[in-house]
C-alpha cells in the first residue's frame, strides 16, 4: 500500500510560473477593461451592454468581473463525438490531453498524383478527409484548403459537405458567414438525429476568426452568435503577428491576442452559458525580411506554449498550432519545423493542435506533410506518455529470474509490455543497410507518398446514416440557387 506518494504519469513541462501567469492574466483584464475592442456587430454590442460592458460607439470595454464570470461559465472539459458512434474517434477535451488535426483555407494544394503545387479543388477535400480518417494520430478534420472550383461564396459549404462523408472524426468547420454555417449545421444535425441530440453529442466545432489588433469583425461575430444560439462548440481564434499586428514581445502578443479571444468568450457565454469555447489561435512572428507570418519559426511553438499555459490557468481549452512549415516542399526544413512544433505542442497539452500539414507559410496544404507529421506526433506521444513506475514495471523479479547473460525476449514480462511500452514507426526506417538497399533505398519522402496513396486506394470511412447523403445534396442545391439569385445583395452588411 502506497502512502504520501506522488505520480507523474507523463512528461512534465511548464514554462511560466503562477506569478507570471497571474501577471499575464491581469494584463489581459486590464486591456479589455481600459482599451477595449472595436466590435463591428450591433447585436453583439447590445448583448455586451446588457451583460454589463461599457459601449462607446463601436468601442466596447469589458469590466474584469464580467470576463471572470464568462470564464467561470465556460467548461474546461467536454467531448466531441464521432458522427458514427466510433468511440475511438471521439475527442475528450480536458487536462493533459493533446489532440491534432489539419488547418483550413490554404489556396494551394500539393497534388497527390503529380506532386505539383496547384489551386485547391473540390476533389481534394475528400482525399484529405479520408487520409485524416485513416491516420492514427490525427484526431480531428479540417480540409487543408479553400475550394477553388466552385462558386466563391460556397467553398466553405462544399468543403464541409465533402469532409463529412469521408471521415467520422470530429470536424472543425470554417465558414465565410452565417449562411454557410446554417447549411453546415443542417447537415451535422441531421446526422446527429436532431438539434437536441446534437447538443448532447456535438459532432463538429464551429470556427471563427476575429481580426488583430483588437477588432471583432462583423462576420466573426455573426457566426459566433449563430453558433452560440445553436450550442455548437466554438473555436475563436485570432491570428496576431508579432511586430506587425501585435506587440513584438511574446508576453505582449499573448496579452493582446487573449483579449481578442475573450471578447468572443464574453459574448458567447452571455448568449449561451456553458458553451464549449476553445480559445485561439495562431501566434507567431512577422519575418522582418520575408514579411510573412512565419509558420516554422521557433517563436510560434514558444508563444503557443505560453498561450496554452495561460488558457489552462484561466480554465479554457486551447486551439494549439503545430506541424506546419514555411518550406515550399517536402524537405528537411519541413520535417524539422513540423516535428519540433508538434513535439512542443504535445508537451504543453494544448487541447486541439491545428495546422498540421500546412506548408509554404499556410499558402499550400500538403497531405504528405500531414502524414509525415502523423509519424512525428506518434513519436512525441510516446515521449509525453512518460515512464510508469510500479512493482511490475521495475521488474526486480524478472531481473532476478533472467540473471547474468540471460535474455528477456522470452519473458512473459516482455510479451506483456512490448506492444505498449515501445512505439513502432510507420514511416521511419530501422532496417539494416542491406534490407534497405534491397527494398529500393526508399527515403522518408518515398515512404510517405506511398503511405498516402495506399490509404487513398484502400481506406473506407464509416458510411453516413441513411438520408444524410441526400440531405447534403439538397443543402448544396439550395445554396447554389441562392448564389444564382444574387442573394448577397440582401445580406445584412451593416455593422
Amino acid at each position, binding site marked *: 500500500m502506497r502512502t504520501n506518494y506522488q505520480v507523474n504519469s507523463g512528461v512534465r513541462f511548464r514554462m511560466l510560473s503562477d506569478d507570471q501567469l497571474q501577471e499575464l492574466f491581469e494584463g489581459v483584464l486590464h486591456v479589455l477593461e481600459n482599451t477595449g475592442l472595436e466590435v463591428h456587430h450591433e447585436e453583439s454590442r447590445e448583448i455586451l451592454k446588457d451583460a454589463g460592458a461599457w459601449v462607446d460607439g463601436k468601442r466596447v470595454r469589458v469590466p474584469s468581473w464580467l470576463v471572470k464570470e464568462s470564464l467561470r461559465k465556460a467548461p474546461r472539459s467536454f467531448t466531441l463525438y464521432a458522427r458514427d458512434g466510433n468511440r475511438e474517434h471521439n475527442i475528450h477535451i480536458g487536462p493533459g490531453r493533446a489532440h491534432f488535426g489539419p488547418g483550413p483555407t490554404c489556396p494551394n494544394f500539393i497534388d497527390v498524383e503529380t506532386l505539383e503545387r496547384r489551386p485547391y479543388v473540390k476533389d481534394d477535400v475528400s482525399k484529405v478527409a479520408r487520409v485524416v480518417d485513416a491516420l492514427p494520430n490525427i484526431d480531428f478534420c479540417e480540409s487543408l484548403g479553400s475550394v477553388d472550383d466552385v462558386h466563391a461564396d460556397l467553398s466553405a459549404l462544399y468543403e464541409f459537405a465533402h469532409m463529412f462523408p469521408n471521415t467520422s472524426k470530429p470536424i472543425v468547420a470554417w465558414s465565410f458567414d452565417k449562411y454557410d454555417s446554417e447549411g453546415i449545421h443542417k447537415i451535422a444535425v441531421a446526422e446527429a438525429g436532431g438539434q437536441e441530440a446534437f447538443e448532447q453529442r456535438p459532432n463538429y466545432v464551429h470556427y471563427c476568426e476575429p481580426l488583430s489588433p483588437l477588432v471583432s469583425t462583423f462576420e466573426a461575430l455573426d457566426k459566433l452568435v449563430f453558433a452560440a444560439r445553436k450550442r455548437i462548440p466554438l473555436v475563436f481564434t485570432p491570428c496576431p503577428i508579432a511586430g506587425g499586428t501585435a506587440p513584438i514581445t511574446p508576453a505582449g502578443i499573448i496579452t493582446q491576442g487573449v483579449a481578442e479571444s475573450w471578447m468572443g468568450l464574453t459574448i458567447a457565454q452571455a448568449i449561451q452559458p456553458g458553451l464549449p469555447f476553445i480559445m485561439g489561435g495562431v501566434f507567431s512572428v512577422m519575418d522582418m525580411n520575408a514579411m510573412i507570418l512565419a509558420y516554422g519559426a521557433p517563436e510560434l511553438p514558444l508563444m503557443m506554449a505560453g498561450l496554452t499555459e495561460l488558457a489552462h490557468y484561466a480554465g479554457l481549452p486551447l486551439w494549439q498550432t503545430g506541424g506546419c512549415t514555411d518550406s515550399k516542399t517536402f524537405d528537411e526544413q519541413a520535417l524539422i519545423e513540423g516535428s519540433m512544433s508538434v513535439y512542443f505542442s504535445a508537451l504543453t497539452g494544448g487541447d486541439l493542435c491545428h495546422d498540421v500539414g500546412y506548408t509554404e507559410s499556410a499558402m499550400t496544404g500538403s497531405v504528405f506533410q500531414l502524414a509525415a507529421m502523423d509519424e512525428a506526433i506518434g513519436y512525441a506521444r510516446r515521449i509525453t506518455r512518460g515512464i510508469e513506475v510500479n512493482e511490475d514495471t521495475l521488474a526486480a523479479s524478472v531481473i532476478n529470474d533472467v540473471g547474468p*547473460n*540471460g*535474455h528477456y*525476449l*522470452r519473458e512473459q514480462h*516482455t*510479451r506483456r509490455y*512490448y*506492444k505498449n511500452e515501445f512505439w*513502432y514507426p510507420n514511416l521511419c526506417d530501422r532496417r*539494416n*543497410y*542491406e*534490407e534497405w538497399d534491397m527494398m529500393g533505398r526508399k527515403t522518408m519522402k518515398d515512404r510517405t507518398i506511398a503511405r498516402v496513396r495506399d490509404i487513398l486506394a484502400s481506406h473506407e470511412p464509416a458510411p453516413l446514416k441513411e438520408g444524410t447523403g441526400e440531405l447534403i445534396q439538397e443543402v448544396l442545391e439550395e445554396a447554389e440557387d441562392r448564389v444564382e439569385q444574387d442573394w448577397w445583395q440582401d445580406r445584412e452588411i451593416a455593422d
Partner: protein
Amino acid sequence: MSTIYEKLATTVLEGNSDKVPGLIQKGLDEGKTAKELLDNGLVVGMDEVGVRFKRGDMFVPEVLMSAEAMKAGMDPLRPLLAEAEEEMLGTIVLGTVEGDLHDIGKNLVAMMCEGAGFDVVNIGFDKPPEAFIDAIKEHQPDIVGMSALLTTTMRAMGHTIKAIEEAGLRDQVKIMVGGAPVDAEFADRIGADGYGSNAPSASDLAKEFVGAA
C-alpha cells in the same frame, strides 16, 4: 471445420505452446504420420510466421512464441520421426567465437532454427576453433553457425573458418555467420557461405543451405 493441419499451423502462428502437444496427439490418433503433421501443420505455421515477420506484421517476441510452439510439437514427433527413419531438415552446430562472451543472439538463432525443424547443437560462447572442429567431427552437421557481437572479436570468426579449412572439414559444412557488427561483405571476406542479419533470417539462410527454402 478446419483440418488438424490447419489447426496446428494456426496454433503455431498464435504461439500457443500449451495447445500443440494435444493437437499432435489428436493428429496421430486420426492416423496421420509424424512426417505429415510436421510438413503440413507445424512447418506451414512457421513459414507464415516468417512471411509476417518480414512484412513487419509480427515482432520478435511473437516469433519466439511461435518457435516455442513449434518446438512443443517437435518434442513428441522427434522419436516417431527417428523410428520412421525420416530425415530432419539437418543438423546445425552453433557457437559464439573465442574471446566473445555474448550468448543471447546465438541462442535466438538456435531457437529459430529448431523451430524451423533443424537439430541444433549449441556449443556455447567463447569457443576456440578447436571446439568447433571437435563438434563438426562429433555431430557431422550440415551447417556451422558462428556469432560475434564485438568488432574486436569478429575477426575470430575468420580464424575459426581458417582452422576448419586446415582441419580438412570445410567442404563438408556450410558456414553462416552473424552478430551486430557483421554484414554480408564481411562474411564474404572471411570465407563464410552466408550471413543472417537477425535470428529469423539466419533460419531462412539455414533452410536455403539445405535446399528447404
